[in-house]
Structure formats: structure tokens, C-alpha cells
């Protein structure tokens, strides 16, 4: 019973840290990561389809490196090495470097999502459009992409949920998201299990609500198609 009283006491005293700050920063970081990731990921997907071999090579290399190394390691490198390259970063709070790393990370995954989304559209669609006299460009924009987007959006939603959980690693640099809230409260109270349960429930509530929202969006899109 002590356990639940402790949880209640912690919530009474630290609800702001968990609910406002923790969830706020988690959502903020995830949104920045996915929005930035969607933008740069699209550019990278374009680059991957380009005819310039060098561009293609560079983007492929970035994607492979990002996908082949753990996010925590990328965060360490981002926080400690980026400021050496871009001196402005060293005077800014760590959350900037962390956000940049998360954007790069999510760009790599999103570019793969977009590439596979486009490739999943039957090649016959493109061939039919071309044989009807459409240019490569219009065929891509008005025939292939609209179909590809239906493949891409759900996967993008999943990426968002993944990123929500990945932001927890940013707590290594105390940027304020949910896991940082856990570290702050635990560091003072030494009540580890209780804080973990609170944070666990909050993470689950976040991702559960998000995934349900995405499902209903998907259903609506299917109905329209």
C-alpha cells in the first residue's frame, strides 16, 4: 500500500514536472523531429531517386550510418561534436543539439518510408501514364504520389510514435522530457519504482492515444479512396 501512497504523494507534489514539463517537452521534441524529418526526409527521398550518382551516394551513406548506429550514440555525438563544427550551438541549451540529432535521425527513416511508399505503387501506373503522353514529372506528381501518400502516411504515424519513445534517450542531457522528469524527481526522492510507474503510465497514455488517433485517420482515408 505504501507504494500507491508514494505514487499519490509524488503526483501531488510533482504533477507539474510530469504532466506539463515532461509531456510538453516530449511532444515538442517528437513534433519537431517528425516535422523536420518529414521535410528533410522528402528531400532525401528525392535525392535518392536523382540521376546524380554523387548525391545518391551521399544520401545513401547518411541513411545507412543513421540506421546502423544507436540513437543514444548519435545524441552524444550531436551534443559534444556538433558545437565544435557549429560554434553557435555551444552557447545554446542542449535541447537544440538534441532536436537536430532527432531530426537527422528521423529524416533517415522517413526517407526510407517515402522511398518504399513510392516503390510500392505498381510500376504499371507510371507506364500507363507515360504511354498516355504525360511527362515524367506530371505522371509522378498526379498519378504516382497521390497513391504513394496512402502508403506513406500510416508509416509516418508509426514513426511519430517511435520518436515519442526515442526522445526518452535525450534525458541523458536533462532536456526536460518525461524521462528527465523521472530523473529529477527520483534524484530527490530516491523512489525509483514509483516514478518509473508514473512515467510508464504517461508514456503509454501518450502513445496509445496517438495510435488510436492515427487509426481513425487511416480509416477515414480509406473511406475516401
Amino acid at each position, binding site marked *: 500500500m505504501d507504494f500507491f501512497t508514494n505514487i499519490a504523494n509524488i503526483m501531488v507534489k510533482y504533477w507539474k514536472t510530469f504532466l506539463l514539463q515532461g509531456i510538453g517537452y516530449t511532444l515538442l521534441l517528437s513534433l519537431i523531429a517528425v516535422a523536420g524529418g518529414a521535410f528533410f526526409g522528402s528531400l532525401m527521398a528525392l535525392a535518392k531517386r536523382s540521376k546524380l550518382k554523387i548525391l545518391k551516394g551521399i544520401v545513401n551513406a547518411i541513411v545507412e550510418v543513421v540506421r546502423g548506429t544507436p540513437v543514444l550514440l548519435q545524441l552524444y555525438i550531436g551534443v559534444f561534436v556538433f558545437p*565544435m563544427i557549429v560554434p553557435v550551438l555551444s552557447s545554446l541549451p542542449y535541447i537544440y543539439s538534441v532536436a537536430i540529432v532527432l531530426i537527422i535521425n528521423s529524416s533517415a527513416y522517413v526517407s526510407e518510408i517515402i522511398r518504399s511508399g513510392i516503390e510500392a505503387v505498381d510500376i504499371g501506373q507510371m507506364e500507363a501514364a507515360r504511354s498516355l503522353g504525360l511527362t515524367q514529372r506530371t505522371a509522378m506528381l498526379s498519378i504516382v504520389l497521390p497513391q504513394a501518400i496512402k502508403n506513406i502516411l500510416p508509416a509516418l504515424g508509426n514513426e511519430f510514435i517511435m520518436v515519442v519513445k526515442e526522445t526518452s534517450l535525450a534525458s541523458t542531457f536533462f532536456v526536460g522530457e518525461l524521462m528527465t522528469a523521472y*530523473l529529477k524527481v527520483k534524484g530527490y526522492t530516491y523512489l525509483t519504482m514509483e516514478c518509473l510507474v508514473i512515467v510508464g503510465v504517461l508514456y503509454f497514455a501518450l502513445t496509445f492515444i496517438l495510435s488510436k488517433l492515427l487509426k481513425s485517420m487511416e480509416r477515414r482515408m480509406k473511406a475516401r479512396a
Partner: protein
Amino acid sequence: MKKISKILCMLLCLAMIFSLCACGKSDADSDAKLSVAYDKYLADLKAAAGDGSNGTLTVALSPDFAPMEFYDVAKTGDDAIVGFDVLLAYYLAKELNMKLVLKPMSFDACQAAVQTGNADIAISGFSWTYDRAQNYAISDFYVAGENETQQSIICLKENEGKYTKPEDFIGSKIGYQGASLQQILVEETFGDMDVDTSLVYVDLGTAVEALKAKQVDFLAVAHGNGESIIASANDAIAFTGFDFEVDDIYKNNVCLLNKNDTELLALVNAALAKALENDYYSGWYDASKVYAGVKTLDELGFDENGNKITE
């Protein structure tokens, strides 16, 4: 869809109950009292600070380690990071006439930050160890009360006082935080005995949970941290009564600086010598301990306005 909205409703209700609880009760009064002595020291240090014309002093620290450094979530910005090492950081900035920037991060990231030049100095309850001395410039010692001079072993309440000499621990499991002074002490003391010392924990909180779950019989901790742990464990945990014999070189804390930063090192050492001479440390440490809820103002000789009573 109905199911989903039901679940959403339930979650919302839960959130509302929590926030209602929060409105009903306020701990602000008692918190203000805990921090009163600390706030006084901090205000003094801030008031004495110069114009910061010598640049910025970036300090890396790992604020999950009461009473040395921890968060007070009632405060905002840099002021939310509190504890003994924070007072020391403000003191150093004042002495060097620099502007202080605190950079919170995990304990091992602190070392990486200093190594890469991301922070000028790491002040986070570090002890001197041979390996650290190889890779960093290490400052002279500073004295955080008995936090380091007394190194103890904690256990579940039922074993309190039963273990007093090293031989008593034969056949048991002793855990500790990885890469800490306690690791060295445990290995030195129990290394050649039949004691299982293979249980290494990333942080103290996890270690305490393992102790409560009886996955480990004992934990080696600095005495000050032990007091914090016991204070929040509702008396489920106690000191065994065994204290390590601590070598002088381990007894106090040090700051870590970048190996090449000899200029700053000299300045820091001069400031530390001055603090030691004027006995600033004990007041800071006692105030931080009260703040962490380990001892009361009264027990450590403060009046209720946070002034140290001197006989």
C-alpha cells in the same frame, strides 16, 4: 470507436483526479522552509558575484544525486538545480569573476563534456581515482561534509547492526554504483573474500530497488547519500553499522577539468584553497542536507530563518 472514447474518458478522469489533488494541497510552505538556509548562501554568493568580465564558466553536473546536486522542481531555470556542488560552482564563478552556466547531464556525460571542451569543469561529486587522474586535470580536494569521508554499507531494516566487520559479509552479495568510489572500496575490501561483488548498478535509485527486492543483500554508498536513501525509504532501509576504511586520497571530492586547461586549474585550486581556509564548505553542506530533507534546520544548527547559530 465507442471503446476508444471510453478509454480516453478514463484517462482524462485520472489526469483530473491527479490535478485536483494537486490543487487541494500545497507543500509550498514546508518546501520554502527546507530551502531557507540554502537560499541564503546562494543569495550571498550571487550578490558578491563580479561583472563576469572573465568570460563564462560552464559547469557540467549530474543533478540526480541528493544532497550533492539535485532538482527543486518548484524553482525555474538554472535556479532549479540545487545542492552543495551548485553552491561551489557559484563560488568558483564569483572568485574567477566569470559568468556561471550550469549544464545538467548524466554522470558519464559530464566526463565526456569536459573532455570535448563542451564544459570547462565538471563538479558532480567526483572522487579522485587513478584512471581519472590519467585522463583529466584534477583540482585540489574540496570537502563535502562527511559525504565522502564516511563510506558505509546499507541493508534492509531487519539486518540493521548485525554486520560490523568485513568477515560478517562472507557469502553475501554487495552491490554498488558502477565507476564510483564505492566500487573501488568494495573491490579493495572484499576482493579476496568469498563475497559476491558482481552486482554493478547504473545509478543509486536502481540499486535501492534491487536492495528492496532482495536481489542484492547490501549496497555500498557514501554516507550522505545513504542518509537520503534511508530518509525516503520509510525506514525500510538502515545502515549496517559497517564503515569502510577510506584512504585519504579518496576522502574528498574533486573537480574534473580538461587535461590542457592548466590555467583554469590553477585559478580553481586557488579558489578552493581559500574556501577551505575560510571553512565555507560545512555551511554549504549542512544547508544542502536540510534542503534534501535529510536533516532538519535545528539538527544542523540553523535558526528558523536559515542563519547558522554560532556559539
